[in-house]
């Protein structure tokens, strides 16, 4: 299985079919853990995008609405909801980011098991037979690391913004 041989890149961007084929190859050589990792990554990025949407589209209007409230009681109730909404999904995102390298490790270990199974059946004579085990061991680690690093970058930025906004809201409700 050599993805390069099937890639036909015309221009800068490969066409959809090529991407699908190479994705299929990627997932097939990465094993079941990579599929699990794909689901985790999907969930992580959906949550992150939702946070971005909240930060740019929802939050400003909500803050303005809160600022317009006259009563301190209503303002506090509203600001509590707003703080909770800022924090919503942050712990979940944090856990998903922490889980990504762990899943990569799981993939490494399962890949190693496959590798050693092949070794116990056929010996070390043929390195080609071991290649699929090595792919299964390394691809999930790489994917897990990539997801964790990109996710962490966005998450840190969002968290810093959340901290700032929380302070802002606290100022709004204290006299």
């Amino acid at each position: 299985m050599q993805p390069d041989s099937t890639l036909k890149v015309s221009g800068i961007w490969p066409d959809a079919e090529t991407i699908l084929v190479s994705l299929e190859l990627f997932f097939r050589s990465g094993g079941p853990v990579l599929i699990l990792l794909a689901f985790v990554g999907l969930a992580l990025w959906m949550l992150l995008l939702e946070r971005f949407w909240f930060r740019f589209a929802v939050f400003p209007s909500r803050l303005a609405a809160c600022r317009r409230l006259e009563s301190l009681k209503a303002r506090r109730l509203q600001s509590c909801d707003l703080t909770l909404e800022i924090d919503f999904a942050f712990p979940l995102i944090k856990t998903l980011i922490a889980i990504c390298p762990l899943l990569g490790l799981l993939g490494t270990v399962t890949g190693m098991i496959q590798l050693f199974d092949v070794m116990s059946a056929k010996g070390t004579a043929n390195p080609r037979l071991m290649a699929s085990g090595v792919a299964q061991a390394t691809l999930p680690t790489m994917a897990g690391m990539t997801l964790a690093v990109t996710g962490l970058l966005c998450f840190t930025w969002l968290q810093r913004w959340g901290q700032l906004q929380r302070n802002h809201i606290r100022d709004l409700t204290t006299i």
Partner: protein
Amino acid sequence: MKFRHTLCSSLIMILLTTAQYTWADTTGTKSNTGPDSLRALLQEVRKQVTVDQQVEAARLQKFKDEHDLQAQKLAEAEARLKEAERRRNQLQAQFDANELKLSERQTTLDNRSGQLGEVFGVIKQQAEDFSGILQTSLISSQYPDRHEQLAFSNKDRIPTVSDLKNLWLLLQQEMTESAETAFFEASVANSSGQLQTKKVLRLGAFNVITANGEYLDYIPDQQQLQIYAKQPDTQFGNQAKSFYQGATDTLLIDPSRGGLLALLGQTPDIKERIQQGGTIGYIIMGLGALGFLFALLKLVSTIRVTLAVKRQLNSPDNISDRNPLGRVLLSAQTGKTESQEALENRVSEALLKEVPHIERGLTFIKLLAAVAPLLGLLGTVTGMIGTFQSITLFGTGDPKLMAGGISQALMTTVLGLSVAIPLLFGHSFIAAQARRLLQILQQKSLALTLPDTPVRELAHAA
């Protein structure tokens, strides 16, 4: 000893004397009839002596005759020996002559064949190699006993023209057939070893499939096909089935001619894998089951409390003490005349009472999530110890021996991680819910106790 000797000799003496007496008795009875019994005895003795002499002479004569006979036989045997030796010499001479003739003929053959000798050698070598290939080739399941046509490779004779033709035709057949798919009837052994004649489809020299999409293994010794005990995934089985029917043109082919499919049967399934984990594996799974159960219960209780708090928020006039927010609000309501600061203190006091109830059990889940990978590591280390023990016993010569132990050792790590990851996720989800709940309790209870006054007036008062 001496006593026994004397006893024996005295016994013999007694016997002899009794014998004498009896002989004397018989002669006595005879001599009693005549007066001159002593003379008769003399005559009797003389007569006996002559008889004895006659018998002795006859015996001697017999011995002499036999001696002559033996001498004659010896002479005959010696004659036979001589004859045999003569014959041997003759045969030896003939053998030598033949040998000479044979070497002459061999030289003639070598001279006449000249360069062809090497050619025949190469042909025999090729035929032998190809015979081995044919015996293991899948195509032989369709055309059995082909290798017998190449039997000349082991014989000490020059291959005939028909032999050469056979080799050529077989080589070409193998080449042609390895590029073709063909239907044919063959006896197929199922997993219990029963033979059945089935129509099968051969894909070049790579694989043979049945109408049901089962892949077949070729056993050269018995020259029969056998269904692989472990078939590839069902999706490939269905693909093979529809390929057999001609419905699709995609098919899974094992390019190693059955090697990878045979390897499939050796890989352990999930149940065997879990058994490989051993005691520590079962401990990890037990802890995992406990953790999941606990997390599930905690999740249900947290959701129930959250729903109760939400209901309370929606009905602020009807304060109930059956939910945490209600209890905090009730404690705030008891003294409405107090200052804001005292009120806040009381609320936070009531809040502190609720915290243990909400956060109860979360640490336990976290503990299990932390312990599971550590136990996995422990299992790996004990497994490695086992592997190193086998290295001490058998050396590092056989990688197969070590590899089995290592893959077994890694299994506990897999189990530990697959328990820890969901538990970690569950813990953080429940912990987030609990923190949210606490935040709602803290901020909303304080907000609800405030009077409904506008901010501007409060700022003005300050």
